[in-house]
């Protein structure tokens, strides 16, 4: 019971209150902003961000300055791979999922090995990986067509499936439940918090620190890959660097949701609220005609502000 109260505490309540407030502001600025169909659209976009942020969340929880800057690159790459493997055919969906998830896992695995066994700081490792993936995207794009989403996938992402909500939102809810269970009711989850909170103590208590950290990066790659598949379902076809827009917001969503960048503290429920809040904010910015560069500036400033408010208790390098 206390744990339930704890998880509901401040950051999530703050996020939910802000979402509500932003919806009212949006509705005032542009009537129809908070209409059911519009909210549904916002939820789909939030789910895409939320799925990327799930992996980001796990990596950050694992501590030792864990962060995954390569998620955007994985989303883009996954969207291209999915598009080409499906090529507009429903029959290609299983292969697309398999190919994308394997690619994401492999990229995450390399990140994890670099961070643990080769002791490269996560920031540097994943930034380097992002550079590699961006180069790879340019090469691929010159050779093969970007492909098209299968109708089944587009339907899954955009059309109502159950209780009027599309499949992707149910997928997001499932991921939320899965992570809540993983973090609070499994040994693996407890170990994630342990290495994030006190790596040395965790090692002395027999936690396989390196293996767990590698697996967190691999999971981050998998979640980004899933988001990439869903993204091509949403947009129909992949275009250059579609995933780029996810790097910064995925971190903001995690921090906004109350997860400490120092690791070992937080959870995914807050991150889901953070993703919704950011999506609504993005919607408002679009409505008032602030372009992509303006949005980037606002997002960057938001992250810095959040660090000021939430980061004060514990220094990030502690």
């Amino acid at each position, binding site marked *: 019971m206390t744990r339930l109260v704890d998880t509901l505490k401040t950051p999530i309540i703050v996020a939910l209150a802000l979402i509500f407030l932003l919806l009212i502001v949006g509705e005032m600025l542009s009537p129809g902003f908070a209409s059911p169909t519009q909210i549904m659209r916002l939820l789909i976009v939030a789910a895409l961000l939320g799925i990327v942020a799930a992996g980001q969340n796990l990596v950050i929880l694992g501590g030792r300055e864990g962060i995954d800057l390569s998620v955007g690159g994985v989303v883009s790459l996954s969207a291209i791979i999915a598009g080409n493997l499906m090529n507009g055919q429903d029959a290609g969906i299983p292969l697309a999922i398999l190919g994308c998830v394997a690619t994401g896992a492999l990229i995450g695995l390399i990140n994890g090995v670099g961070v643990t066994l080769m002791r490269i700081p996560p920031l540097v490792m994943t930034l380097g990986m992002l550079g590699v993936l961006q180069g790879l995207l340019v090469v691929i794009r010159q050779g093969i067509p970007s492909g098209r989403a299968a109708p089944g996938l587009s339907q899954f992402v955009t059309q109502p499936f159950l209780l009027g909500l599309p499949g992707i939102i149910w997928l997001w809810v499932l991921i939320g439940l899965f992570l809540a269970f993983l973090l609070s009711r*499994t040994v693996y989850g*407890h170990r994630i*918090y342990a290495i994030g*909170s006190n790596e*040395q103590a965790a090692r002395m*208590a*027999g936690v396989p620190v390196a293996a767990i950290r590698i697996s967190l990066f691999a999971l981050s790659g998998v979640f980004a890959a899933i988001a990439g598949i869903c993204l091509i379902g949403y947009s129909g076809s992949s275009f250059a660097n579609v995933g780029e827009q996810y790097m910064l917001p995925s971190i903001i969503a995690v921090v906004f949701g109350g997860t400490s960048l120092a690791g070992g503290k937080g959870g995914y429920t807050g991150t889901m609220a953070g993703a919704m809040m950011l999506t609504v904010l993005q919607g408002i910015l679009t409505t008032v005609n602030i372009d992509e560069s303006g949005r980037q500036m606002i997002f960057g400033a938001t992250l810095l502000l959040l660090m000021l408010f939430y980061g004060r208790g514990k220094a990030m390098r502690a």
Partner: protein
Amino acid sequence: MAKLKISGVSKAYGATVALSRGDLELQAGEVHVLIGSNGSGKSTLCKIVAGSVRPDKGEVLLDGKPVTMSGPRASKALGIGIFYQELSLAARRTVEENICLPDLPMKGPFVDRKTLSERAARYIALFDGVTGEGFSPDATVDILRADQRQLVEIMKTLASEASILIFDEPTSALDRAQVDRFFQILTRLKQEGRAIVFISHRMDEIFSIGDQVTVLRDGATIGTSRIADTNAQEIVRMMVGEEPAIAAQAQTSSAASGPVALRLANLSGAGFSDIGFEVRQGEILGLGGLHGQGQSSVLRALFGAGAVTSGDVSLEGASYRPHDPRAAIRAGLAYVSGDRGRDGVIQGRPILENVTPIHFLRNRLRLASPASLKRKATPAVEALKTKFASFAHPIGSLSGGNQQKIVIARWLIDRPKVLLLDDPTKGIDLSAKADLFALVRTLAAEGMAIVLYSSEDAELLSNSDRILVFNGGRITRELTGAERTRFNLYEAAYEAA
């Protein structure tokens, strides 16, 4: 008239009294040795003289005039220089910069490099021929060996040219030739009329360099004698004080005769060499001696958290190679560190999660069901009389003693074969200590083999069936039965290794 006279100074940190009555009379032109066991108040006394700790009570007279040390700068101005046990060097700066760091020669707003090199060279020259390979004025301190760094620290202290020099264990890392040279320098300084305070744990050094010796015990000055009028036995006797009756201490000795649980043969590694001993089931083996003589290093290495270079270990007759805590836990070892903040507590997480990690590993669990874990953890936590309101509360809500109990409780759900206790009661309250040792004895009575290192000699003497005294990374004496006295422990700990 005494150069420096300290009378009746005291210092308490909260409820802990570090120094209850410190007296010291230091004459110009003498080397005055301070000696006392761990926690007797030597370092606090030195810090008061150096101005880094302000006394609660008492008087300090310098050349007969009362002075208040309002900080390190003030005592420096009064002509007091101190060598710190915990080295105070800037790692990325050069040897010569470090030597001159407390008083950099300036030319306008810039450091005067030429004067700096010249001044440093004078002090480096004092140790000509014993500084060893790789030592040069422009080498950065971080590439130097431990003994070389200690030399730099000594040079830095000498460069203060203070009339009162305090050396807090300056020779711990030095080799014979370096110590000899240092003593020659001290003798010359003495002849120049400087007053020198010298702290060392080596009887041979004390007798070769000292003029006077002041003994401290339990935070109070016991007495001062001329070195020429005393001997090592008498000094140890002053350090020990009234020896409690042996019968009271020997009560635990049940002469454990179970099978051998842990056997080490010629084990060497970082900080210890050629260690060999056996612990039987039901036995509490104590590791004694001064702090940092390899006791901790051996325990950590056994648990796979420190380096082993050679030697053999067997656990209940089966060969065991320590390399990783995970493997150690699976093999049946348990390790409790005195540094619970670093090695034990998973801060910010619920109490329950701090009790369960070993249980997860030993049983290869995948799921963590709170209800069943609480059932398992309850007896473990109750065995230590841990006070807490709910398993769901964060561990940080507990007192230090109760946090350590939780850390120990994690080893009690699935019992280990051998329990390694590495100064487990450091910084915890008396009642928690009592609960802990009551449990340790129960565990031993139930057949667990226990290896205990404690920096508190009383704790070690009253809880060990047998004591191995460590000195310089080796076992130098074994105390069994009625030999387990404070006198014997100190004598073995303070003799030259």
